[in-house]
Each structure stands twice: as C-alpha cells, then as structure tokens.
C-alpha cells in the first residue's frame, strides 16, 4: 500500500465517522421538526374539537308546535280589521290562551309563569306578522311552530342534567314534565336555526344571531381593505422603486417597522382621539372601525409589499428600462405583476389580523349592544370578535353554544376570505427564470 493510499484510507475513515454524526444530527433535526408540527396540529385539533363540539348545537333550535286559536275577541274585538288594531293586538295573550288550553290543569301564579315562559317572546312577533299579512286567519285555528325559550332549548338539547336537584338547574320539575309531554306528542323538535344567521344580537339567547356582527365585520373589513391595500401597495412601491436612499427614507422605514409592532389598543386610542373626537365621526361605526384597522394593517402590507418588490429579479427591471420603459411603466408592466402575489400574501395576513382584532374596536365603541343589522358604514354595529367577547361574558347557559357558534362563523369567514385571496394570488402568479 502506497503512502497516498494509506492517507486516503485514514481520511475516508474520518469522513465515515463524521458521516454517522452528520446523519444522526440530521435525523434528530427531522424528528424535532415532525414533533413541532405534531404538537401544533394537536393544539389545532383540540381547539377545533372543543369549539365544534360546543358550538354545533347553536345551529339548531328547539321549536314547539302550539294549536293557536286566532280568536277575534283577543285580536280584534271590534271587528274592524284595521291594520293598526292588528298591529297593536295582544298576541302574548293568544299564545297564553293556547298554552292554557293545552294544560288546563295548571294553576297558581308560579306555575302559570313557568308555563308561559316556555315559549320565547319572539312568538308574538311571528303571530303578529302572520295576522297582519293575512287577516282572514282571525277566527281560525292553526298549528304554529314557535321558538322555545332558551332554558327549554338548552334542556331539550340535553345540556342540562335532569338528575340535578331542582334548585340547581334553570328548568323546574313541572317544566320538564311539559317538555317530555310535548316530545311524546311530537310537538317539540330541533330545527335548523336560520335566525342565528339572519338576526342581530338579543338579550334573549334563543333570538340572538350573528348577522349583525357578521355584517359589521364585513363592512369594517371592506373599509380596511379599500384603504390599506391601495395605500400600502403605493407606499411600498414608492419607497422601494422611487424614493432616494437617504436619512429620511431610513427614518420612515424604521417607523413603519415600529408601527407594525405597536399594540393594537394604541391604534384604538388614536382612532378615538382623531376620528371620533377631532373629526366628529359617528361612534361604533364600521367606517371608523375600518379606519382604525387600516392604520394597524398598513405597516404589515407595506413591509410585505416591499419584501416582495425586493424579490423581483433586477434583470427584469434592467430589461424594461433597457427597452426604454419609464420607471412607472417598468413598475406597472413588469415589477408589480411579479410582486403582486407576495403583496396579496401580506394583505391576507394583515386582513386576517384585522378580522380577529377586538381591542382597538372597544375603544371606538363597537362593543355596544346593538340589535339591528348594520346596512351602511355609519350604522352602529359590532364585529364578530367583539360579539364573541360579549356572549362569552353573558351568564345564560344558552350563550355558551352561541359563543362557540360565533367562533365557528368567524373561522368560516376567515377561511372564505383566505380562499378568495389564494385564488386571486394563484391567478396573478407567474414564473420567471
């Protein structure tokens, strides 16, 4: 064996020894990575199971069939059939009469109060609407499915243990008897809870819906998107492509980076002081919410936009300039289309953060109890995260499932928003060599 061959073998032995260490390190690294992902997935799975298992019941609601007697004496004793009379009539009495008729044995103030409390007061409005729309109903009988009160609903969904002592549960023994009786007669059933998606907030859990918060979130985010995307993209383009590199642009850059890290509640205070107190904009309005969230989202979009502009290869810029394109043409025709997917990613992140934000909106009054679904940018409204916060604070058992239901709606909103952005991004995405 020659000297070089000897040297070769020792070198190779050393390499072999180091190889084992290298492979071990690589395996370890992979194991850490897989472990980290598994932990993350486990948390997500836990979160989703917990939310969905608590929240899916909010998409169903208990309805009870009552034989309603549209008696003329109660609704329109004078027989005029005037719209005003029909509007003002005491439909609560109609429902009570129907209940009394079904359970004639019930006596005593307390028991009657229990009996009448089984049906949600939304029932009166339902009957009123039916009679006003069709006055010929008066004097007839009809079986109507009416919304049950929240404690009946909670019990019917099996969320209250009937073995608990009566004083520890929100539903009394006699009420349980009535519910069981209805159930046996197929007069009580769970139906899809359309009201949850079409009505605003309510003090009565069985009538509370997310429509107001959903519309508020949509309007607020619309304002945020319309303001922060164009301004953010324009600012990123100016800073990256046109602005000279000097002390001023350095200061601006540092400030933008700092703004991205400012706690959101500070933006809320700024919005309160500037938009509401100085400019006199309405409180609790999606317009102001959108402005505040724009302030918060802008730095994210600008930073992401600049990063994606930086990632466009300089050869594309040279090619465009070399062809005699002006700087604006260079940016508009070549650089921006290539940078847009990255900018959209930044916008998704910013908008997702804005959607989940509640602290700054508390400062501008979007935490108020608002029943009406907002229809314009200046209508008072609330947003989904604030609605979740409000319901989570409410003592009624029925709000627990609604809280989780609202979280599911929020996640669904987020998913739709991201899906749209991803589709848009894929559409714009182009490859360069």
């Amino acid at each position: 064996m020659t000297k070089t061959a000897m040297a070769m073998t020792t070198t190779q032995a050393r390499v072999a020894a180091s190889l084992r260490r290298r492979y071990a390190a690589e395996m370890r690294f992979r194991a850490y990575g897989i472990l980290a992902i598994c932990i993350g997935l486990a948390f997500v799975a836990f979160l989703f199971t917990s939310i969905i298992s608590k929240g899916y019941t909010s998409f169903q609601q208990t309805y009870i069939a009552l034989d309603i007697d549209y008696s003329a004496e109660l609704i329109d004793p004078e027989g005029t059939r005037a719209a005003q009379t029909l509007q003002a009539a005491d439909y609560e009495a109609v429902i009570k009469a129907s209940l009394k008729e079904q359970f004639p044995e019930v006596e005593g103030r307390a028991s009657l109060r229990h009996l009448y409390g089984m049906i949600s007061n939304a029932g009166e409005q339902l009957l009123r609407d039916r009679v006003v729309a069709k006055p010929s109903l008066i004097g007839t009988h009809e079986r109507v499915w009416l919304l049950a009160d929240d404690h009946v609903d909670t019990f019917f969904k099996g969320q209250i243990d009937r073995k608990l002592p009566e004083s520890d549960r929100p539903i009394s023994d006699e009420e349980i008897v009535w519910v069981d009786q209805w159930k046996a007669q197929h007069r009580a059933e769970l139906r899809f809870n359309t009201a949850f998606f079409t009505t605003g907030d309510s003090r009565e859990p069985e009538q509370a819906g997310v429509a107001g918060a959903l519309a508020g979130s949509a309007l607020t985010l619309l304002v945020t998107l319309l303001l922060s995307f164009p301004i953010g993209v324009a600012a990123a383009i100016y800073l990256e492509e046109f602005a000279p590199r000097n002390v001023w642009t350095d200061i601006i850059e540092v400030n933008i980076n700092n703004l991205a890290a400012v706690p959101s509640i500070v933006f809320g205070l700024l919005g309160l002081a500037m938009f509401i107190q100085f400019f006199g904009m309405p409180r609790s309005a999606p317009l102001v919410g959108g402005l505040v969230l724009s302030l918060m989202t802008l730095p994210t979009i600008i930073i992401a936009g600049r990063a994606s502009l930086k990632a466009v290869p300089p050869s594309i810029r040279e090619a465009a300039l070399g062809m005699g394109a002006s700087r604006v043409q260079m940016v508009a025709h070549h650089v921006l289309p290539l940078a847009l997917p990255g900018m959209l990613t930044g916008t998704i992140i910013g908008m997702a953060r804005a959607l989940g934000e509640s602290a700054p909106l508390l400062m501008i009054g979007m935490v108020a109890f608002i029943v009406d679904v907002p229809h314009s940018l200046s209508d008072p409204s609330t947003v989904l995260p604030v609605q979740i916060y409000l319901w989570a604070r409410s003592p009624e058992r029925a709000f627990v499932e609604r809280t989780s239901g609202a979280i599911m709606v929020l996640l669904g909103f987020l998913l739709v928003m991201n899906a749209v952005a991803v589709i848009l991004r894929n559409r714009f995405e182009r490859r360069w060599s």
Partner: protein
Amino acid sequence: MTIEQHQHVTNVARDVVFNESDHSRPGEQVDTKTVGQVTVEAPVITARHVNVHYSEKHAIKDVSIDVARNSVIAFIGPSGCGKSTFLRCINRMNDTIPNAKVSGSIQLDGIDIYDRSQDIVQLRARVGMVFQKPNPFPKSIYENVAYGPRIHGLAGNRADLDEIVQTSLRKAGLWEEVKDRLDNPGTGLSGGQQQRLCIARAIAVDPEVILMDEPCSALDPIATAKVEDLIDELRENYAIVIVTHSMQQAARVSQRTAYFHLGDLIEVGPTEQIFTNPRHKLTEDYITGRFG
C-alpha cells in the same frame, strides 16, 4: 512594428505612452493616452473624456472612443476593468445605480446624451441593450417583442405590430423556431433562444446602436455560434458594441477591438491588428494569456 514603437509599448508606465495620433479625420485631435486609432469616419457614437465614479471608486478614467456605423466593436479586458460600466454609459443605464457619477461627453449623432434636454426614454429607444443573462419578460414570446413598439407607439394597429414582431424575430433568426408558439411564455425557451428573443426585442424598436453585455456568457457553444452569426448579420443595419470575455469571440465577430485595463482604455484598433500585432505591452500580455 518599428523599434521605436516597440520601445514605447514596452514601457509599462502608461503616461509615457502618448497617442500616436494617426487619426484619419483631419482637424480632430483627441488628447488621449490610448494607443491606436480612437476615431473613425462618420461615427454614430463619440465619447470624449468619459469618467465614471462609483462613490470613491474611479471606474472609468478619461476614456475617448468612437463607434462606427454598421460595424461591430468589441470591448475586451480582464474582469473589473470597466468595460461593462462604459457600455452602460452609452444608454445611461448607470443612471439607475445610486452614487454613480458620469462626466465627460458621449454624443449620439452629434448630440450629447447626457444633456439635460436628452430624454432618457428616447435615448434607450435608439440605443438598445442585450444583457449578460437572457432576461425575457415573464410574458409570451409575442408580448416580449411587441413590448418596445407598444410603449413607444411604433405600431398603429395590430397588423403593424404583428409585422414588426415577425420581422424582428426573423432578423433574430428565431422566427422559424417559434412561429407556431408565439403565445407560449418567453421564459420557456432554451437559453440561446431566450437570448435571441432578447435581441429580437431590442431590434423591434429599430435602434441605431445595440449594446451587448457578454451576450453569450450564459450560452452553450452551439447557441453561442448562432448568436455570433446573428451579430454578423445585424451589422448590416446597426452599430454594435459588444463586451466579451472571450477573445476568440471578439476576433470572430468584431471589426474593431478596444482593450480596457483598470478603467483605462489602453488600446483601440482593427481587430486583426489587435490580435496579431498589439502595440501596447498590456494588450499583448492580455492577448497572449499572461494575465486576465
């Protein structure tokens, strides 16, 4: 080469080597240290005493040279000698680099391109450029070629534009290869085809001068041969300035050659003479492969 001249060139200290002043144009005396003939008859580009500074670095030192019409001039020299920098001065691409300062005068058809009144967009329409790495736009082949005519408003209608695209691709020798897939992305072509597409893109606006910055350095020998043939054909209509690291390429495609060294323009002359009979010691060293 006379003995006297030989003594001149063996003296490496350049400031001792004065221009021999064998200018063919009477009346035009260029005060330069460059050896050989910097001027030509009826030049398209006339550069005089051009200096370029990047912050502290003096990248181009007092360079004076003419570029002739309908011919190819090659800039050769070791890396970092300033040949690309000088090339980029001719269509003001150095404007995009912060801290780059250009002084002296460069005239295109007798008009100073660094004059305030010179529009940079117009200049670049007249002085096209092909880059080292093929850089087609991430758009279709058609759109790549049509881009220049479109932004400069050269085509009145779609038919005119089609005509320009076809002519340019034909001139670039690419038409036969791509005519059936003009809508395919330009970035999907092979490296050599991409470079010819870039040349087609440059000639679509019918420039007077085409600058080429090492156009074949990223190409294989076959693609290089095609591009070189193309350069030879394009010479009929355009003045071409090519920067190259390959001396064989310079010898093959160019009529004149300029040798740059550390920001100085050392020697300019007919290509044949530069490669067979260099008059400056530095040129000779570079040509014969003693450094660079």
